[in-house]
């Protein structure tokens, strides 16, 4: 059994709607796992269920082999880091961090030693007597982390801990959190809607979609080999062509688009003869003057000068539009021109065409 295991978990809110249903998750000891997904996908619900803030209606939650369904939060020995830091406003940094140890009735001398060590690990030495209101956002979150790890919890739960920080600080704190996590080797579950954050920090990423795990794997897998079109979309792929699968051979497939036949990677969900959608990443789409092997014809709809580059919006028929960024010296086309787009056979993937409308994640 894995260190943390959720088996067929069902969780619902008061109005009867189920947020999680038949939810399964296994996390090995010492792993940094990210729960990634758009808002409303159930990632925070999953975290709050593990924390005990939400009751489990069905299924079982095991941590370290022990059934946790009926254990109240304050007996769970978990560290929780919150999006809004949730520091105790009336207590100093030291008193915030020592809180959990006091609750556990740790000896005062031992307490002090552990608190000072935790404060040092998060890089806040010298700030012990400050009140939270006199700290910056980044520092406050460091206190939040110190407070959660000082109790040596079985699992560290982090709920979008960086989303209230500004962009630069966020990058810095990513590295910090990862360093701290490795230093103490703590099993961590990290909720985020930011795919680059999940990719950069995690050992494992679980991508959630409406209460289910859509794909769980190493960051590289999720990023380069999305298993479903939902994952592909969320990880920055865009739709570039529609067609019919003509042939599948050794991980590759040929998709007949009507205009041409494209060779791309095949996903497990397609079969010969099925309708397929080809996905690719914007930065792997190169514009060509003439048709070459594995390319699509398009029409330049707009040319947008961006300073050091030019953004082309190209229409490919079937109401598919793609964006392509080109350096200024290669910006040879004008609006209305015909261009060809090279489709990278190793970086583009074909998925089965689903009839439902795509959700657009660009706005998230």
């Amino acid at each position, binding site marked *: 059994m894995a260190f943390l295991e959720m088996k067929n978990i069902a969780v619902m809110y008061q109005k009867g709607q189920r947020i999680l249903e038949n939810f399964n998750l296994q996390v090995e000891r010492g792993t940094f796992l990210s729960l990634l997904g758009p808002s409303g996908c159930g990632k925070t619900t999953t975290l709050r269920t593990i*924390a005990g803030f939400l009751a489990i209606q069905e299924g079982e939650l095991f941590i370290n082999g022990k059934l946790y369904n009926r254990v109240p939060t304050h007996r769970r020995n978990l560290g929780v880091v919150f999006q809004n830091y*949730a520091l*105790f406003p009336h207590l100093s940094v030291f008193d915030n961090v020592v809180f959990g140890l006091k609750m556990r009735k740790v000896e005062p001398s031992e307490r002090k030693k552990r608190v000072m060590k935790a404060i040092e690990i998060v890089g806040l030495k010298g700030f012990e007597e400050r009140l939270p209101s006199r700290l910056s956002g980044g520092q406050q979150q460091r206190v939040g982390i110190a407070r959660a790890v000082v*109790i040596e919890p079985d699992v560290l739960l982090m709920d979008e801990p960086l989303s209230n920080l500004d962009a630069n600080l966020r990058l810095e704190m990513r590295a910090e959190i990862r360093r701290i996590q490795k230093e103490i080797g703590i099993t961590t579950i990290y909720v985020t809607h930011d795919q680059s954050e999940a990719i950069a920090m995690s050992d494992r990423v679980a991508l959630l979609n409406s209460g289910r795990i859509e794909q769980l794997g190493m960051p590289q897998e999720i990023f380069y080999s999305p298993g479903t079109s939902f994952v592909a979309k969320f990880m920055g792929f865009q739709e570039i062509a529609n067609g019919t699968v003509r042939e599948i051979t050794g991980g590759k497939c040929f998709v007949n688009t009507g205009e041409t036949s494209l060779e791309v990677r095949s996903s497990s969900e397609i079969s010969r003869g099925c309708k397929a959608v080809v996905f690719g990443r914007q930065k792997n789409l190169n514009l060509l003057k003439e048709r070459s092997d594995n390319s699509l014809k398009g029409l330049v709809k707009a040319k947008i000068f961006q300073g050091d580059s030019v953004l082309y919006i190209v229409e490919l028929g079937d109401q598919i539009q793609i964006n392509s960024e080109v350096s200024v010296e290669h910006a040879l086309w004008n609006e209305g021109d015909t261009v060809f787009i090279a489709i990278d056979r190793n970086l583009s993937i074909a998925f089965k065409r689903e009839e439902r409308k795509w959700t657009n994640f660009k706005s998230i």
Partner: protein
Amino acid sequence: MKKNWWLSIVLIIVMLFLIGPFLIIFISAFGNEASLRFPPRGFTLDWFKKVLTMPMFLDSLKLSLRLGIFSSLIAMLLGLPVAYVTSRYDFRGKRFIELSTTLPVIIPQMVAGLALLRTFVMLNLFSIEMTLLIGHTAIVLPYVVRNVISTLVNFPPSIEEAAVSLGASRVRSFFIVVLPNITTGLISAFILTFITSFNNVPISLFLTGPGVSTLPIVMMTYMEYYFNPSIAALATILIAMTVGIVAISQKLLGVSRMM
């Protein structure tokens, strides 16, 4: 600034309108004639001496203070759990509780007073002071609930969750994490309810009885028979007291938007 001179004038008129009557009372309190007049002809402090030695005023002042303090305390004890539950959980009847906290503003207090009187006469269980205490508690309770709810709404539930995740039970985290952070709100609610109770006339009017009366009622009754500066002196003392309480609490708590 030239642009704003007429605004300043409006402001001065409004201020005069608000403070003027109090000034008149204040100045009249020092008049040396047997009837209240403005402006007074001479100056004396006798009325203050007289007021502060009259048992009628002193007893009712003490009663009003007792009522103010105890009704506020009881309302706090009852109102705090209600406010907490209302601000933190969703449940049946939540709307009703929220609505009922606005009732005392809507329902004429005369009606409430009459209703309370009828009830107490029917029950015939309590002493007059006890009925007054219950009546005042009922009147100030909604103010407590409302104020404490608005304080709690500004206190993120995640802070409590943090305490619970660190090993404090729900109840314990309320006492060691929530309570220390809402004391300002509680004290300002207390001051508000104290003043509400202390100044109350309509409810007290119905519930006072022979020999047991609150200060505002005694003042009204006294005025019906005597119209001398002792009432002005008493009013001045009350104003000074109220302003004093508010000023001190603002200084101590830094609450500027207390009421």
